[in-house]
């Protein structure tokens, strides 16, 4: 064991891994730290690890109406879009995976092709459509638009997840007397749950961080948090670094919360009740 560990190849691999891990985690750590600093502590020549923490940035952020509205808009738009994505996308993916017809391949390609397009190519026509319909700069417009993204992403990731459920398990349930819908609920969903959580979480992160479409579809009322956060840096010459960092922290928290809540929720739903 000791000899094995001392091999240079292994050492180098570990070093590279550690470096990559550091590169990934340190900026997050530093951002979180900076959110607690006064501007003076941020713009020093020598980076400060020890400083007097302040909650001023965070309370400033949380005290602004625009931020709170952005947070609300983001939460509603993304939450609703992901919910619609789950409700429509998962059954659709299951149907394509388990009951393929001659269009199954085309459906899959179409779903993926939605992601080929540069968002801006979609955003401009959508903006025109929503303007015509009279729903421009409203949450419903944003929810519907985001649902297109979440449905396609969830479908695309859930099809292989459902295909990965051994067919015999579902057949055993049929033989046990269950119908197609019960098999979907009681067998396919729980067995594929792990991969499905990933699909759902990914779709959430995608729309939560979405910037361009939100920028095109909102002017004042329906601005999401990424738009609001970006506007914070446009306040004159003096860049409020602390506030920016605090807004980044605020922006990063919901996906983390969402992930942990989601996985906990699915675990509890699908854990078999002890009878």
């Amino acid at each position, binding site marked *: 064991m000791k000899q094995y560990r001392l091999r240079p190849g292994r050492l180098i691999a570990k070093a590279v891994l550690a470096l990559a891990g550091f590169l990934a985690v340190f900026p997050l750590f530093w951002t979180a730290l900076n959110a607690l600093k006064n501007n003076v502590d941020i713009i020093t020549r020598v980076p400060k690890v020890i400083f007097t923490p302040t909650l001023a940035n965070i309370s400033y952020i949380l005290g602004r109406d625009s931020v709170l509205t952005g947070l609300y808009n983001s939460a509603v738009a993304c939450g609703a879009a992901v919910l619609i994505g789950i409700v429509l996308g998962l059954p659709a993916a299951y149907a394509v995976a388990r009951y393929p017809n001659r269009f199954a391949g085309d459906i899959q390609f179409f779903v993926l092709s939605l992601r080929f397009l540069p968002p801006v190519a979609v955003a401009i026509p959508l903006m025109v459509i929503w303007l015509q319909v009279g729903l421009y700069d409203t949450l419903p417009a944003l929810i519907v638009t985001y649902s297109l993204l979440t449905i396609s992403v969830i479908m695309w990731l859930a099809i292989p997840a459902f295909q990965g459920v051994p067919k015999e398990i579902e057949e055993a349930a049929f033989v046990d007397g269950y119908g197609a819908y019960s098999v979907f609920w009681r067998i396919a969903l729980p067995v594929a749950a792990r991969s499905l959580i990933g699909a759902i979480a990914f779709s959430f992160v995608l729309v939560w961080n979405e910037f361009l479409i939100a920028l095109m579809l909102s002017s004042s009322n329906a601005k999401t948090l990424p738009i609001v956060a970006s506007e914070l840096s446009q306040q004159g010459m003096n860049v409020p670094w602390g506030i920016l960092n605090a807004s980044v922290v605020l922006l990063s928290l919901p996906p983390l919360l969402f992930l942990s809540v989601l996985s906990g929720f699915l675990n509890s739903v*699908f854990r078999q009740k002890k009878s």
Partner: protein
Amino acid sequence: MSAIVCSHVDKAYGATTVIRDLNLAIEEHEFVVFLGPSGCGKSTLLRMLAGLENISGGEVSIGGKVVNDLEPGDRGIAMVFQNYALYPHMTIFDNIAFGLKRQKVPAAEIRKRVEAVSRTLGLERYLGRKPTELSGGQQQRVAIARAMIKTPKVFLFDEPLSNLDAKLRNHMRVEIARLHQSLKTTTVYVTHDQLEAMTLADRIVLLKDGVIEQIGSPAEIYRRPGNQFVAGFIGTPNMNFIEATVARNGDGWTLTGAGTVLSLQGGDFHLRHGDRVVLGIRPPDLKTAQAGSANLLQGTADLIEFHGNDALVTFGSGGKEISALVPARECPELRAPVRYSFEEDCIHLFDGETGKSLRRQ
């Protein structure tokens, strides 16, 4: 009344016909094995009985009721799958109870029945575990328990032992036989392993290319194979086949082929002068020739496989490889000349064209 009747059953996937005009009646309490090489349609036929495959043509009835359009759950069957197909997210208890829950059986009775079934199969200790925490043999036992608990009219087994190692397979085979003895439930069992078929079956249905080649008890199929395919498929080591030409010789017949001339009484067979036939003889039926033995097959021992009690001697005769299973103490040296003879009542003769047995009924 027959438990299962298939009449004129067809199965086609698009233009490919998998099963063609199949007729079969399975009696109550019978243990029937579908045997055949892979791709012969035996699993498809089983899945059609189960309702997991559509029936393209014909009619299947179970317990006197036509089931063509019934869902699997309404057919009164239970099935054991090759890879067990346990529900991975449920405990063993829930796996076994899943079918009963669907039937809205009261919880107390479910508990009682699960306990009874798991006692029979020695699973009491594992009821709280998940399938992945069990060994292959235990998982298979859970699958059997899951089938048993529903007290079905018919058990369907789809190659249930082929994922187990050889030793466990023997063990589970005995368990399945014992289970059938005590439950007497009509059973249809699919396998490609002739040992399983021979040891378990009341009757074997031998399939090839979606057509039944022969139906019969294991002894019938072994002793009276209906055609050359059946003869070659059943029996280990494989039957020797020697192409020969028939000639009339006084009261009897001579067969010329593989560098030798054999004379027969031929009373058991339909023979005609000049026919081309295939002579089949099983390796254990070839005996070391004594002085004065008739019907000699001789050559040089090319290959000797030691089996323990016996040895399989392969030799060339007239450009044809022939094997003889002889007691190990009679085993010759490699490349030594060997002479074997056989009794006429051990042989099988098949039509050279159609492969059909020439034996008189």
